[in-house]
């Protein structure tokens, strides 16, 4: 077995003037959950499309499970798309039988594997119900069960939990972890807290490139201990420059109407903040440094690098 489930080097793919992937390189180790994190339009879905042999790179090399991706490779890959794929008029059981048949599973295999997965994903009581009657969370679970049906070695998850609540997410990830031991999971998402919770390694993406990759701990290393999110719509660039020089202050990033600051000690930082801008601050939220903070730090560093 290869040490890497996926190896991509300098992948490039353009749609007209826009570069979806622009010198994208990554190595995904075999086994575990690897997160590809980035905002919408950063190139995550284009990368997954290449892994699923639905798009071809214009330049660069790509290996999936040790070979260049072809339709034959897909027998070893399961894919969950951003949107649901099930025919709403089919029952959950019919959809899985249909999917399994397209992966050349025998009737006997389907008769054991389908009830097993439906039970694990909490859908067994709904086996004969039309997909259209399932809740959004149930449909997402059905999609993941479908992708695992033929026992793939690599599972591609493209924003699999978008639009579902926290309880449903927990159920889905638990069922996935129980059902796919040893399977390499590539999770493309813009949900950084989720990635922080489930991924062993992650890569930050922006504008079709990898900004940084490593374990969440490695990427958070060097961050200040605490993260302060300040509701401060009127913050000026001058004010942000000042607080960046306060003792213990780290990265200062404006996100819409908020300002995100990492600091060694929020208990001394926040009172100074109210002294600086009395009446302008609407809210303050203090948290320990997260993967989100690390992401914004890398995005900012890249922006500064580009500006220089």
């Amino acid at each position, binding site marked *: 077995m290869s040490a890497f489930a996926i190896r991509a080097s300098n992948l490039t793919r353009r749609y007209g003037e826009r570069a979806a992937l622009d010198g994208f390189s990554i190595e995904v180790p075999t086994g575990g959950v690897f997160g590809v994190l980035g905002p919408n339009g950063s190139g995550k*879905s*284009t990368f*997954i*499309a290449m892994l*699923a042999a*639905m*798009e071809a790179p214009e330049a660069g090399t790509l290996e999936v499970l040790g070979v260049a991706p072809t*339709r*034959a*490779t*897909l*027998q070893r890959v399961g*894919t969950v*798309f*951003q*949107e*649901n*794929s*099930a*025919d*709403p*008029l*089919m029952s959950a059981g*019919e959809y899985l039988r*249909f*999917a399994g*048949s*397209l*992966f*050349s599973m025998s009737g006997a295999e389907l008769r054991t594997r389908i009830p097993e997965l439906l039970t694990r994903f909490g859908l067994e009581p709904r086996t004969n119900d039309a997909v259209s009657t399932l809740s959004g969370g149930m449909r997402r679970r059905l999609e993941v069960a*479908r992708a695992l049906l033929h026992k793939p070695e690599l599972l591609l998850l493209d924003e699999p939990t978008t639009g579902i609540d926290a309880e449903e997410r927990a159920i889905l990830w638990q069922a996935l972890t129980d059902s796919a031991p040893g399977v390499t999971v590539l999770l493309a998402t813009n949900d950084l807290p989720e990635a922080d919770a489930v991924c062993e390694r992650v890569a930050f993406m922006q504008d079709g490139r990898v900004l940084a990759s490593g374990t969440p701990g490695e990427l958070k290393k060097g961050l200040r201990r605490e993260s302060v999110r300040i509701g401060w719509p009127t913050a000026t660039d001058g004010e942000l420059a000042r607080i960046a020089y306060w003792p213990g202050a780290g990265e200062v990033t404006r996100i819409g109407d908020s300002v995100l600051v990492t600091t060694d000690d929020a208990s001394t930082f926040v009172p100074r903040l109210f002294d600086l801008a009395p009446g302008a601050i609407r809210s303050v939220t203090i948290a320990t440094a997260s993967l989100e903070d690390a992401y914004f730090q890398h995005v900012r560093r890249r922006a500064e690098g580009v500006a220089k």
Partner: protein
Amino acid sequence: MSAVITIARRDLMAIARSRSQLYSSMLTPLLFLVFLGNGVSEGLEPSNLPAGNFTAYLVAGTVVMTSVFSSTFATASYYRDRDSGLLRFMLSTPHNPRMLLLGKSLAALVIGTVQALVVLLAAAPFVDFEWQYGVLGGVGIAIAAVVLVNLMLTGLAQALASRIQTMQGFHLLMNLALFPLLFFSGAFFPIDDLPAWLRVLAFANPLTYAVDALELAAYASDGETFIGLSIDFAVLGGLAVLVYAFGISRTPKLTYSGA
């Protein structure tokens, strides 16, 4: 090949479950026969018609019309699958997209053929068919003609569906192409008395050969007013293979994001 059967079976199941589509697509041509056939027979002199009355005359055209619309509607399932995301999933399986199209078109072919034959057999007891080749021979010829027409129309619909983005656009274009073909096929009125330029159009129209074969199968005798089965099947067979092969060669224009 199992993927083709799997997809065809699923499409047939979807159509069988859509009872309104299933029944209305068979009931509409039968109502057409009853009301239009009887109405026109009462109002016009039927002696010019090879079948002797307009209801019997309309049978061949109605069978072809059923094929035309059934295979077209069945092919439109492409859009339903695209919009539900199922097509994207099918394209993420190890199969060549052409195999997937083959499965979908096989279902459309079966539906179009079965519905057309149901209409023919449902009409048979009420009109005076001659069955010059015997009932079995006539039904056999009808089946062959209907299969070839459906093969050709399924290929045409598949080629258009793989390139037209919306179902509304697909139906508009299919109707634009198919109504003139139906009108100048001898389906609703004999083509012998048409002006010369319209007769040229009629003989360039593949549906004319299907109507001719069905008329010969059911109620007409070979004669000067008919084209003849050998030419009918040569034209239909050649075009069916060509158009179907073209349709299947047009792989779905679907990106990963479904656009």
